[in-house]
């Protein structure tokens, strides 16, 4: 493998991003993906297992791993950590009861060494519901200000309506792009 083929590989790799999308069950992860892909979001059943969606976003090829969030599945999340460029944590902003559960799972995830260095986008979903917590409240609830050594960003959104998702993904792509890639 000579330099010219390395350069070619790097160029291709720079155009690809692997995104892991997790969160508690019923947070709306699959809806976010479908919305982003322009698919019908009216009938979505709980994800049993995982979905992989490859889609073109601007000039990038996003490889989104959408893993179910039921409690029994959570211990298997780490099956999917390898080579993750960005972590998208989706929250049901109206599910105030499970906010602590949500915080624990997130913080646990962030301790995983294979996710070190991955950009973190938090999607405060279901902002269209009246009972939804605001972005500021969620930052407070999850203690996001305490995060160190982590590029993170939060946007309020409504996956069903489509609000906010684009700006969230824009940030992800920008943030991942700004890093220098290491070919592995």
């Amino acid at each position, binding site marked *: 493998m000579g330099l010219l083929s390395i350069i070619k590989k790097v160029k291709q790799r720079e155009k690809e991003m692997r995104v892991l999308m997790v969160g508690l069950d019923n947070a709306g992860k699959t809806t976010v993906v479908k919305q982003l892909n322009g698919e019908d979001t009216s009938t979505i059943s709980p994800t049993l*297992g995982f979905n992989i969606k490859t889609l073109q976003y601007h000039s990038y090829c996003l490889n989104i791993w959408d893993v179910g969030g039921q409690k029994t599945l959570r211990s298997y999340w780490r099956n999917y950590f390898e080579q993750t460029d960005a972590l998208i944590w989706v929250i049901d902003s109206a599910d105030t009861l499970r906010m602590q559960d949500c915080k624990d799972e997130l913080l646990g995830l962030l301790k995983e060494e294979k996710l070190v260095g991955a950009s973190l986008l938090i999607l405060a979903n279901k902002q269209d519901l009246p009972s939804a917590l605001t972005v500021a409240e969620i930052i407070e609830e999850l203690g996001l200000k305490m995060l160190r050594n982590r590029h993170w960003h939060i946007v309020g959104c409504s996956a069903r309506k489509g609000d906010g998702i684009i700006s969230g993904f824009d940030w992800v792509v920008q943030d991942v792009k700004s890093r220098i890639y290491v070919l592995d």
Partner: protein
Amino acid sequence: MDVLDPESDSVRTCTYVEEADELFGIVQKAVASKGQEAGDLLARFSTILVKYQEQGNLLDPHLEHIVEPLSDILRKFALQAEATKEINAEALRGTCQLLWTVITVRGYKNSVKFFPHEARDLEPVTCLLDWVHSQTAKTTITWPGTALHTVQAVPRQGQWFEADGVLLLWLSQLILIPFDLRTVDSLLGDVSSGPQQSPLVAKISSLAQEYLESAGSSRTMAALLMGRLLTRPDQATELSAFAEHALQSLQRQGANASFIVPGIAHTLAIIFKIGHRKILLPLVPRMWPAAAQLLTGSEAARSSLVRKLAVKLSQRLALMTLDRQGSTGGEDGREVGEEVEEAVGLLLTGLQDKDTVVRWSAAKGVGRLCGCLPQELGDEVVSSLPDLFMDSSADAAWHGGCLALAELARRGLLLPARLPQLSPLICRALCFDVRRGPHSVGSHVRDAAAYVCWALARAYSSEIMQSSLLALAPSLLVTACYDREVNCRRAASAAFQESVGRQGGVFPHGIDILTAADYFTLGTRTQAYLTVAPFIAQYPEYRRALADHLLEAKLQHWDRALRETAAQALAALVPTEPALFQGHFVDALLPLCLSPTLEVRHGATLGLAEVSLALDKVGQGLEDSRAAQVAGVVPAIEKARLYRGKGGEIMRSAVCRLIECTALAKLPLTMAQKKALHASLDENLKHPAAAIQSQAAVALCAFCKAYVSKASPEALARTTLKHLQGLKDANVAIRRGSAMALGALPSMLLLPHAEEVLQSLGRAAQKEEDAEDPDAESRMNAVRALAASAQTLYGEQHDPPTSHSAAASSKPSREPNDSSSQRPQGSSAKTAEIDTPMCVQSRLCCAVSATIAALDDYSIDNRGDVGSWVREASMTALPPLLKLMAAYSPNMRHASASQPSPPAQSLAISQEKPSAHKPPITSSAQHTNNENSLAEANGELQSAPQADNASATLADADAAIGDQISSADDGSPQDAQVPEQLVVAAVRGVVRQSVERIVRTREAALSSLKELLCMQPALPCIPARQSLEGVVSSSNPEHLATLSGLPTLVSLVHVEVLRQPLLEGMAASIGGLDGSLGSSISTALLSQCQGASQDRTPLRAVAQELLAIWPRHHDSSRMATPLLRTLAALLKPDNLAWLEGNCPHLVDAMLTAVDGELAGCKDVARLIAGADALTLLLACRPPHQERALCSLLGLMRGRFPRVRRHAAEQFYVHLLSWEASPTRKFTEAEQERCMNLLTETAWDGPLEAARPQCTAIADALHVQLPALKLREPKAVESSPAAAN
């Protein structure tokens, strides 16, 4: 700044998958047929996909729609397998082959994500794999435990490997499902009943482990599956069981080890890559010794794959023990395990491995490990890397070292403080080149060094990198311009571009340089050396690096061609700073010319030559003392006897160039030096190697122009006269060299002996009459020299004379310097006396006719048709010679000026007689009085009044001139020196070559013809100009010379003036050894003979002409057999019947010609060809039939058994179909008797047995056989008379 795109070089790059719909169509067909048609669809499917091999990402948007439906087919098979139903094996395999194509094109890592991953598929797919595996097992050849040592040798996977690979890969994806595997296992009843092992997992695991022992892709897929299975959170128990198993397996020895070890090692490497530290860390202490041992074990020694896997495994184990957050968190001072230290040691060894894949893996390992080590420990590792770059180190170590540096640089792990120490090493690696036998190694090192530079440019900010990159830039540009290998030049330029792009304006003139030195301009070596490098050298920052590199490296490179280019490249740098080259470089080169090392002295001599010349060109010639030194180099080389022994030829060529450049630069020489250099050239002119001779001749030209100021008797004796003498030398090398020399001498030296020069060269171009050593190269050189010297004497430099008196004053003078004006009056006056235009014209006519005569050089020797070289040289020489001749022929010029239409045409119109009405005897009759008809033609040329209706009678026109001039080359060309006639003879000679045997010759003929037709001013008197133009302009010479182009040329056979030469050429091809050429030409010829409907008028003309040329080639070893074969080709039954009906005398003449050729012949091939022709002639009517029969029977009682048998067989075959013949004469009984006689005789037996049988056959058919003794002399005598 974008990096260079390596893809843009390919012929065609795509921006999207244009066949997407077709791909989906194929997938749909496969789905609709439930996989049945998949096998048939594979070829097209894979053709499309492979097109995107290099741009696989374009396929990505479509893969989902390809993989999903195809795997759906598999899913259905899987359900059948689960229900233990019959499975259509072909359909399954075909579907898997489609999927496998996707996987190989796109890579399994990219493809796997498009496979379905629903939990419900896990069980059926496992079942299907089990089924496939059982098929595989059936077709597997079990190998004897001891016999085989290599994995590759076992055809274990056989025809199912695609299915294995696809299903294993799919399972590796399915196994990721985030459920407890027991919940999807149908065989397991109640999950809650306890920690029971799932049978499904056991099945997957055992299948995968079996595949781990296979070769190639299935092993990789199985390792992936095992790795992913065992790193699941619910598989901890299985993981430790596997670890135990693995520990034992890794220590296996013996024949099976090479099957078992790679799979296990690969699985472990994957496990320790993706697994969880908490679970795996406890395993490391036990695993580590096994991994370390694996690397040094016997399997590793044997297989680079095992070494690579061992290097991978050990680095992953070491990484396990390091907390990745450690280095970023900055908690330095932690203890680092023993494993890590050992791993670093192993990796450093791996960097020097003889195999590239191992070095790559080790380099990445070094990068990863250092990334996790505390900073000072990481730096310690870096500090040990320079040890790899030792003078004594192997190229592998340099390569590995560069790769490691690059990996570290990419991760930002090279501390800036290290860079000053490293950059000299990188510079050296950029030009690493180690001679090894007849070639050298190092291009991989240089490429990797460019990688280091590229990585450095990307990883650091410009403030840190500035000084280091500035130090690297000149070396980078040297490699970009001067590397021998194109990939290294491009790699270096890519690295430079990255540096300029990322580091802004750090590099002086960076943008300008990378515009000039891009991927494409560096693609060819010559352009890189002679265009790009001089451009960069205009900037003083880089100039010395470039020039020094040429001097120190490329001028002494092992590749001779590279040294020669390097010498030119050095000269190309001269204009950027003449003073530098005038001083330092000349001083450096001078002593090297006498170096004991061949490469050094050759390069230096050439370099000196080119630099001296370049300095002169920029008007800054060498100062006297250095010029004197340069002038002394050649004598010094000779004195040191560096011409002799190995490499002597290489030095001779360099010396010739040095003398040439010395002369062109007009360096002052002493008398002694002049003598010495001239002697040196004379000696090289005699060298057996043609390349050296021609270089010497070129140098001689320059030398004489520069240093021979007048054509003094001494000078002439040393040059012209000497070489005139040499043309007759017994030594062929001297003949060749002298001819070249005469072609190269300047006109001043040729003029006093112009007549003799042209005549002698003309003579030397002919076949040697009595030479003991005939030499085609000498003749070829003479032909070339003839054209060259004629050009020198009378060419270009002066206008053609307009009157007799003008010639004397417009003496040719090619000398650009003032030497010609110093010519003594006496010599000038002498030449003026002789050189009247008439006299020049006659000399040129002589030269032309000698060249035309050389077209008949068909000599052969053990190298084959060496005469073809002479003929080709002659065809190349003819256009310029004819042009000169025309310029000196006032009549011709007058004709072409006053009569714009070509003479052939005007002649033809005056004939006004359709050729069809001509009596058939005309052509042969005119052979006798061609002088008259030619005179007539010329007369008509002058008086041709009307030129209308030209195109309608074109064919007749061509025919007419043909009749009149057709025998121009029948007699001796030297006798007929009328310029107009010579043009015709030349064209006809060239046309003949255009249909001959050798493609190269045909191409040369067509190029020559094209040149003759396109000459400016137009060459008058070209016969059948319009027909020729029509054919030659119809396509390029290369195409016309091919088999498919030949029919176009053959169609010229209708043009009478060209018919004879064409037939001669075609006959040689038809009868030659090349069967496809022969049949292609004879087919074309036959179709031309076939006129409209039943009309065979063209056939008559062709047959007539064939018989007319026959006497010219009577008993010719080259042409006799071809003529017989051509005749046989023409004698198709209906052709023969037509000829008998319309011109029986031709059939008569044919019989006579055949008899004449066979009489007394001892050439078996010719006799057999004759037998074939005679058998065809048996179809004639009685008188002819009897003659043919007699002759055939004559062959059957001849003395060659093979000929007897062949003739008898042909006769028998003919008798079989005799009934069908309308000319049947014999009764059935006679015929049967005859056939019995034929079959009962052993014709290749004793002659005594055959002869009475012949008599019997003759009796049976009532034919009178001539008495045996009388036959031969009679036939010989009769043939010439009959032909006329």
